[in-house]
């Protein structure tokens, strides 16, 4: 009964990467076409997966089970559940848009596309794998291509040495692309080290026979273990999700990464972290989750406000968006911390919404950077006169990020705040809403500095609206934002059963789910 759709989705980018590797360096178009084919197959596959997901039935569908190391109980088990569908589509969209956005990569583009596709294969794998070790495996695959992608194709950025740890500047050139790549990889690997420890405990305490998420979810771990292990999972995956103290890799990482990579990373990879915390942390360790949730919520609230304020004082366009990703990921974690169906639906919806939003932002930043060759917004001004389309899409992105109803941003933020309020943690909703307001301030301030005002100063001479291939990314993502904003049930109907089913496990002993919210 193995339907091979999911393995096709996961394998498509990898196989495309293989083909790209075989095409000669000179055949530039062939490389791009192959990558595009890979992206389209997985994107189409994810659409089929979500369309054919029967929400009434719910639970895991399209299950595929191949024994990887049976003696240890490791099975390559793929299945799509309520949450998997929308996130697959998100990854498909972002990959598709990413490949389009990186059409103009000049140096060593073959390796670029190979790494990009491998990275995405890992992400696809995470969203559908139902085996803890395979989940961890795919999670780790996404780490290394990031290192090389940022290291080679990234861009450096000067950071003046200041502050209490000035001596560190002698050792690392803070802000450089290789420093950013190294920091990003090391911090994520420290996170995965924590996850590895948690993985051991979960595996062994469940009898040491299988890594199957279903079985692990069902086992009743004793309270003490859960309380000790949950923070490991939370901070392990949280590092990737930009949880407060361990988020510092994301501004440097995103600012130094090339366009497509930061689209993929901020758009999808950070969701991996949050997905991990919810799917592994909260579902398998419910008591631990319930014990730690106040802390998780509080840190998430800090994340929201901290990210927003930090973004306000940045003068580099990519840093603004990177910090805004940190702030929006805070909302995802806030939703997860509420342990209410509304909160969880909001969190997963925010993953998708923010994914599209950041994808759009970074695509635009890529366009602006390609034409203006600078990211310092203070030098820019009056770009709308020359690039009205970019200005329009940027404004659309800003409106969605500040949570304007009618865009995807509002729906998720609203549900998360609702969840926070329902779950009795009133204190979290206040920083959340304040965060949205502060986002409005820095986002519109940036729009005004970049796009409004008199004509662009004379030293920008090649500013122009996007050309043929660049339109694709903008239109898809922009339309996505508006469509999801007006009719969120398009993916909410899929997320809903997923959340109810997972939440059932978390709250089973505490409260029966009479009426949904």
């Amino acid at each position, binding site marked *: 009964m193995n339907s091979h759709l999911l393995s096709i989705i996961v394998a498509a980018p990898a196989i495309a990467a293989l083909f790209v590797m075989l095409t000669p360096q000179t055949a530039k178009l062939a490389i791009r076409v192959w990558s595009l084919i890979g992206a389209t197959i997985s994107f189409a596959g994810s659409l089929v997966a979500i369309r054919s997901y029967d929400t009434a039935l719910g639970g895991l569908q399209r299950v595929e089970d191949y024994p990887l190391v049976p003696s240890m109980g490791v099975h390559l088990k793929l299945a799509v559940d309520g949450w998997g569908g929308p996130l697959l589509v998100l990854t498909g969209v972002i990959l598709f848009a990413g490949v389009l956005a990186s059409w103009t990569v000049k140096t060593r583009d073959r390796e670029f596309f190979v790494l990009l596709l491998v990275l995405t294969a890992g992400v696809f794998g995470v969203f559908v794998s139902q085996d803890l070790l395979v989940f961890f495996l*795919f999670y780790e*695959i996404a780490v290394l291509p990031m290192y090389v992608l940022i*290291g080679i194709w990234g861009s450096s950025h000067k950071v003046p040495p200041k502050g209490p740890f000035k001596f560190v500047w002698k050792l690392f050139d803070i802000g450089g692309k*290789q420093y950013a790549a190294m920091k990003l990889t090391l911090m994520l690997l*420290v996170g995965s*080290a924590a996850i590895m420890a948690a993985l051991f405990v979960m595996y062994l305490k469940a009898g040491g026979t299988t890594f199957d998420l279903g079985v692990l979810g069902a086992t009743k771990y004793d309270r003490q273990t859960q309380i000790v292990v949950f923070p490991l999972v939370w901070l392990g995956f949280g590092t990737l999700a930009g949880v407060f103290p361990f988020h510092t890799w994301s501004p440097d990482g995103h600012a130094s990464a090339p366009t497509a990579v930061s689209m993929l990373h901020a758009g999808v990879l950070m969701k991996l972290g949050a997905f991990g915390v919810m799917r592994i942390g909260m579902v398998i360790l419910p008591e631990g989750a319930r014990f730690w949730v106040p802390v998780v919520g509080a840190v998430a609230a800090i994340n929201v406000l901290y990210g927003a304020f930090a973004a306000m004082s940045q003068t580099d366009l990519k840093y603004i968006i990177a910090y805004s990703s940190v702030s929006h990921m805070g909302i995802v974690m806030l939703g997860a911390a509420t342990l209410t169906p509304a909160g969880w639906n909001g969190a997963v919806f925010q993953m998708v919404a923010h994914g599209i939003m950041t994808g759009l932002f970074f695509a635009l930043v890529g366009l602006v950077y390609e034409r203006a060759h600078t990211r310092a917004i203070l030098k820019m001004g009056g770009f709308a006169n020359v690039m009205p389309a970019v200005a329009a899409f940027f404004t659309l992105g800003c409106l969605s990020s500040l949570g304007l109803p009618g865009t995807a941003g509002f729906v998720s933020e609203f549900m998360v705040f609702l969840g926070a309020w329902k779950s009795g943690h009133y204190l979290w909703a206040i920083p959340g809403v304040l965060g949205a307001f502060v986002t409005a301030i820095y986002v519109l301030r940036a729009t005004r500095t970049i796009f409004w005002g008199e004509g662009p100063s004379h030293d920008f001479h090649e500013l122009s609206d996007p050309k043929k291939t660049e339109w694709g990314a903008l239109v898809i993502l922009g339309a996505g934002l508006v469509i999801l904003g007006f009719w969120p049930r398009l993916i909410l109907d899929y997320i809903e059963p997923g959340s109810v089913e997972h939440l059932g496990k978390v709250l089973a002993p505490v409260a029966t789910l009479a009426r949904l919210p």
Partner: protein
Amino acid sequence: MKELQVLWLPLAVVALAVVALLVDLMLPPPRAKQQPAPIVGWLVVFGLVSLLVGTFVYEPTGTAMHGAYRQSYFATYLQRLFLAAGLLGALGGLDDVQKRTPRRQGEFWLMLLSSLVGMTILPGARDLLLIIVAFELMGIPLYIMAAYSKTDAQPTGAGREPKGYAAEAGFKLYLVGATSSAITLFGLALLTGMQGTTKLDLLSQAPLTPLAALGLVFVLGGLGYKIGMVPFHMWVPDTYQGASTPFVAFLSVAPKAAGMSVLASIFLFGLGAQKDVWLPPLAIIAFLSMGVGNLLALPQTDLRRMLGYSGVAQMGYVLVGLAASDAYGLGMVLFFLTGYLFTNLGAFLVLHTTAEAGGGYGFESMSGLSRRSPPLALAMLMFLLSLAGIPFVIGFWAKLYVFLAAWRAGQVALVVSGIVLAVIGLFYYLRILRAAYMTDEGDLPTPKPAPALQLAIGLCFLAVVGLGLWPRGLVEASTRAGAELVAPVQAGQGAGHLTRR
């Protein structure tokens, strides 16, 4: 006759050694000018290949020599490992030996093969006397091979006449080795004396007196230097830097595996009952190895020294697996050793190739490797990933399983510290990667390895990636081998509770 069948492999290796020596003597002396073809080398390689195939074809089991030697799947598994290491080491070193002593190569192959004989006997040896003799048989040729590149001089600055580093490297290895063998002998004397027997299976009958415990601990210390455990590791970086790199590739892999098999047979098989004597020191040594290995690798600028320290750290992880001291743990140790074998051997051979291309042994030799020769860079990438434990190469499974086994056996603190220290390791592996892929200053020539070397690197690459993608076969083989040596603990009982055993 039955006994000889059991011992067919060591005898075959000795035969191969003697044949190699004789063929080398019979060869007409080559004319001065043209470069003589490494006939002897290829003979040895094909000999080893046929023996490796032989182990798969013919798998005798049983005891021989009055219980002194026991051929079991554990022994066969490790023998295959040693033959593979010997084969790859030979392939890697073929061209190097040829260049170094064009006219007389027989001796080098004799040394290699005699060391292999020692190794093939070790895993099956059940008698302490046989173990120490085989251990020495493995050790002494290594001293000689370490000092073998005595003639090539590294220019060490103005004026001073060329100084062979190999001599210094060999001597340091020898000195530590000689001291350790004296200590081991003293320890064995006390141990066998007090326990009254040299047979491993009878060793733990008599209760352990302090003197016997002292002897036991001396043996642990004495055997430690071969694995590069921390207090005994000081020779590793200098020898790796001084000796010729293909030999170091072999040195960094095979003897360590043999040392581990000796530790396993003595401590897990022989003195399993007296666990609380040797387990705490072993755990502390493991922790120190991981710590010092990773920390000291950070500031290194010579890649050979860096990989040396990384080897010390990797052996720390193996010791963590050994500290699990149960069948499952031993299985995972064997799995790790197999993975480590192909990874480290391959890494050193790539290092040798880039050095031969004139880049020296620092980071500059790696710079722009991905441009100069993509396949080599890809191979190095896979080896580094395997060392760092990043997915889809065998290293990822290896480290994960070893830690899992140790955690299952209750060594929680050790595993946690292992995980943390391993993260430091990532830094210098990624730094090599950065040199290969990201920086591209020097206009170094494209490295063109000799065919044999290319084949060796290729085989290592295939093994690391192949086993990484499909570790199932190797996991089952290594767990079966582990179970044969140490009485398998019921799976449930072992993992069920996390109390300290």
